[in-house]
């Protein structure tokens, strides 16, 4: 309830503040716009209306928020408040930067003598428009910063040793996101700026163009502005790494890997365009060098900044990886990144092979319709996609396989990783469905022939289905083979681990407990040695003390004989307590009614402990959450890269 209330108050405060702010900005713009003829009254009325409506709402809600702080000082540490303050700060700083950039962009366009519409940022605005927006947003940003500073101060223990009024955890986390958001914004400006400068250089190879200087003006303004901002934001982030927590944060790792994916994805996409254009020429297209350059200027110009982005952040990621002490986490992120690359590469290569196969089938069955340019473009498209997709698939895939084939803990983790399994099963799934569909289609075509029906183009249809069957079959057989090899190797390693993890079951003198538990453990992992000790016969002997885990009913754990209590206290392994029904005892959040179910859970826990995994009860991400996250990430990434490529084509 408190969180919902917080969300409401801070959301309304943020919206009403922005409404009032832009109302004031528009009011000032209307008042100071002396060159305008007509329409001033409606602009003035609009601005005043937003202020009149927004101001009371803002004041009321901000007062509510601040009153809450006075009554409950720990409110300063709430996550919602931190998101509100840093979100608002970002929402104020970005307009400051955009308006400052607009002034610079227009100044350079004017200096070079270009038409005003050539500016990339701030077309149709004036120095006064931008100046007002900068001053108002910056003024409010300073106020928000003072509020934030007060919140931070309240979370820091003072020298007298007084306890801080709230935890800084939320502020630290949200500030991290804020800093990286600024880095991403500045990086975007820098990349577009460099791309524009590259475009200016490349357009020199084309025919004379009246607007050829526009990329120079735009590139200089975005590039210089972006570089300064990025240097400042990135330096802040890098300096924050002195705090070990910042360097190890998951958010930083995910952010860096996302940058790598965007950089590499765009490099490959534009490389594909360039390879395609080059292959067209090699396959006989007649085009002059200057025309070719004009056609491919956007792609060529994008190569340098995105390749630079990729190289730089690949180095940063490498350095970070060396500094993350926890091998499993470092490996899992690295594996996820490599798996995404390999899977995208696999899809691109497979699609390219399909289209190459279609081309061959069409040619072998007559080639009608594949006139010179059509055939050339289809072949060039397939080969270019293959040239991009194959290295993207092969290199990370071989690295992933090498890791999975390695012995020891690292190889075991690689083979059992959810990401690898998801990759392999997805490939197998696509292979099975593809084989089914193409085999069905092929049989239908063949039967139609046998039964005397000869539809037009049946030869091409049969060859096409045959081609699909071969390609999907290869996909299926290869990945199925990898999956089986992984399974074999894992089974061997697990059997070895199981045999080294003896388990002791304490018998309370109740066969109804001991029997199902022992049977469940043997069924779950037969190599795990299980010993049963009757608790009424004294404490277990020294040979049983070396067991990896001891299993006992909850009633015995709650009220053990004194000798057993001491033995349990000294026991070096894990104690697994089974919450069985017991008169006068209630175990919260468990279902003690079903012993077979409990026995199965005990067996799973024992197996996980034997395999070095975290036992049940520790917070873990659900595999579904991970799978949905990966799929959403892939979709988002492909949208982002295609948006970048489409923007570059404009």
């Amino acid at each position: 309830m408190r969180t919902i209330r917080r969300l409401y108050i801070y959301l309304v405060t943020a919206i009403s503040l922005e409404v009032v702010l832009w109302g004031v900005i528009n009011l000032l713009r209307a008042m100071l716009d002396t060159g305008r003829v007509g329409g001033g009254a409606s602009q003035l009325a609009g601005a005043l209306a937003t202020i009149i409506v927004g101001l009371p709402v803002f004041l009321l809600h901000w007062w509510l928020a601040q009153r809450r702080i006075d009554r409950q000082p720990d409110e300063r540490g709430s996550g919602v408040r931190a998101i509100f303050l840093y979100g608002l700060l970002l929402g104020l700083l970005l307009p400051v930067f955009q308006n400052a950039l607009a002034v610079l962009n227009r100044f350079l366009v004017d200096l070079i003598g270009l038409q005003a519409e050539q500016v990339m940022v701030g077309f149709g605005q004036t120095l006064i428009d931008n100046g007002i927006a900068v001053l108002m947003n910056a003024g409010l940003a300073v106020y928000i910063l003072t509020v934030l500073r007060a919140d931070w101060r309240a979370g820091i223990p003072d020298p007298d040793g007084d306890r801080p009024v709230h935890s800084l955890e939320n502020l630290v986390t949200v500030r991290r996101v804020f800093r990286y958001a600024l880095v991403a914004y500045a990086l975007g400006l820098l990349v577009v700026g460099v791309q524009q400068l590259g475009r200016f250089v490349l357009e020199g190879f084309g025919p004379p163009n009246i607007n050829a200087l526009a990329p120079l003006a735009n590139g200089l303004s975005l590039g210089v502005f972006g570089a300064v901002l990025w240097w400042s934001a990135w330096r802040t982030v890098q300096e924050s790494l002195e705090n070990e927590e910042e360097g190890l944060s998951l958010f930083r790792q995910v952010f860096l890997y996302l940058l790598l994916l965007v950089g590499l994805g765009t490099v490959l996409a534009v490389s594909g365009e360039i390879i395609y254009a080059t292959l067209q020429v090699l396959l006989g297209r007649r085009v002059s060098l200057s025309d070719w350059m004009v056609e491919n200027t956007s792609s060529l110009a994008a190569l340098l900044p995105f390749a630079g982005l990729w190289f730089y952040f690949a180095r940063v990621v490498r350095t970070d990886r060396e500094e993350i002490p926890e091998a499993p986490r470092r490996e899992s992120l690295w594996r996820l990144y490599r798996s995404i690359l390999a899977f995208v590469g696999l899809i691109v290569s497979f699609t390219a092979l399909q289209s190459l196969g279609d081309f061959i089938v069409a040619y072998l069955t007559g080639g009608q319709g594949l006139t010179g340019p059509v055939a050339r473009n289809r072949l060039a498209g397939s080969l270019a996609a293959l040239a991009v997709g194959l290295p993207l698939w092969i290199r990370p895939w071989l690295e992933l396989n090498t890791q999975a084939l390695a012995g020891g803990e690292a190889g075991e983790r690689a083979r059992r990783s959810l990401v690898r399994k998801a990759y392999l099963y997805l490939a197998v799934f696509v292979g099975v469905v593809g084989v089914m569909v193409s085999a069905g289609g092929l049989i239908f075509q063949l039967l139609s022939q046998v039964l005397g029906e000869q539809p037009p183009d049946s030869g091409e249809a049969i060859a096409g289905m045959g081609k699909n069957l071969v390609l999907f079959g290869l996909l299926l057989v290869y990945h199925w083979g990898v999956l089986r090899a992984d399974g074999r190797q894992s089974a061997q390693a697990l059997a070895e681990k199981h045999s080294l993890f003896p388990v002791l079951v304490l018998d309370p003198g109740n066969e109804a407990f001991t029997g199902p538990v022992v049977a469940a453990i043997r069924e779950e992992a037969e190599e795990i040695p299980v010993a049963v000790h009757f608790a009424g016969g004294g404490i277990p002997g020294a040979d049983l003390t070396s067991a990896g885990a001891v299993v006992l009913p909850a009633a015995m754990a709650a009220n053990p004989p004194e000798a057993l209590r001491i033995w349990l206290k000294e026991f070096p392994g894990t104690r697994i307590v089974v919450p069985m029904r017991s008169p006068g005892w209630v175990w919260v959040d468990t279902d003690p009614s079903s012993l077979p179910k409990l026995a199965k859970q005990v067996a799973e826990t024992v197996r996980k402990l034997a395999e070095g995994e975290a036992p049940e009860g520790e917070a873990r991400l659900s595999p579904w959450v991970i799978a949905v996250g990966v799929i959403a990430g892939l979709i988002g990434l492909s949208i982002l890269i295609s948006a970048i490529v489409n923007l570059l084509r404009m």
Partner: protein
Amino acid sequence: MKNDRFLFGILIFIGVLVVTALVLFATGRSGQDYVADGSPEAAVHNYILALTREDYERAYGYLAAGEGKPSSVEFRTFFIRVDPHQNAGLRVGEAEMIEDEAVVDVTVVQGSSGPFDPGFDHPDTAVLQLEAGEWKIVMMPYPFWDFGWYAELPR
């Protein structure tokens, strides 16, 4: 190890596919010659081939007479602007004739426009009529036809 060999085999298979495609492209030019007029399929085939070879005079000769027929200059201008043969071909299927009219199944074969666009085929029809013993085109799919021509189908 076994899987590595399999992967190596797949890569060799891909290499063979690439070489085959290149060889076919360099040597194969089927369906690229004029055929004898006299059937609706031949008229469609020759019309497309004439456009591909930029022989606009011959292609214009396959147009039916009638109200709205473009002049030869309009015809040529349209194709210079649209440039259909740069990235589209036509596969000619079977014709169905009813008296002096014929409908020919055709498939427009669109080339790729980039590395991640494999191109596409889409089925359509061409309509022809018999004029003084010769098959003339009344309608073709885009981009081999401007739908502004022949406001109403000629009779």
